[in-house]
């Protein structure tokens, strides 16, 4: 298990992405799963950066664990900002036309659709969002 604690600001998205990719590098991760994980980091760390501590700045911790048989990555995003359960939000209606579409809610929807498991808990003053992705 490896962990990175870093200021939750959007300028650090690249640093978080690099950190996670480093942990996955030696596992010969499929290109597509890798890209989906990169998108998830953008969505989740981006959300934490925008909303968790606004207008102040706080830290977020990103934990990466890889299980080998079957190959699966578990990535946990932890912040101590305002309690927020992104999974409580209703999925956007993906059948609406461009003019009827509302901006928002798409990010977490993409996370749910591209990962194998997404769980949220609020514990000891912390938002803990965990995603699991098979790397087979």
């Amino acid at each position: 298990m490896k962990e990175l604690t870093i200021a939750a600001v959007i300028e650090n998205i690249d640093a978080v992405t690099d950190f996670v990719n480093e942990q996955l590098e030696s596992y010969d991760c499929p290109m597509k799963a890798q890209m989906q994980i990169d998108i998830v980091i953008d969505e989740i760390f981006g959300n934490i950066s925008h909303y968790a501590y606004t207008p102040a700045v706080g830290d977020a911790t990103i934990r990466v664990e890889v299980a080998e048989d079957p190959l699966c990555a578990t990535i946990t995003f932890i912040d101590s900002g305002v309690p927020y359960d992104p999974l409580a939000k209703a999925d956007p209606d993906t059948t609406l036309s461009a003019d009827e579409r509302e901006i928002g809610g798409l990010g977490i929807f993409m996370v749910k659709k591209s990962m194998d498991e997404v769980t949220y808990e609020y514990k000891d003053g912390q938002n803990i969002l965990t995603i699991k992705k098979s790397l087979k």
Partner: protein
Amino acid sequence: MTIEKTLNGSELNIAIVGRLDTTTAPQLEATLKESFDGITKLTLDFAALEYLSSAGLRVLLAAQKTMNKQGEMIIKNVNETINEIFEVTGFIDILTIE
């Protein structure tokens, strides 16, 4: 991310190189905003776009809404990862993908 703009009369071609995400989407949004005037055909070339996140989708949706009023918008050279994102989010029905 880099943006390559080619203007031909009222037709604008924009090629996006790299990733369209939280950090880079505002850059595309700004480029589009200053370019929309008088454009009747907007072509977005995704040949060198690796992937996009919801921040990118938001910019595409706003661009589509603007172009619905003044002409057409076409997206070309969409890779498999991006096409799947368009499918999952229903954007495949909103956008014109060539």
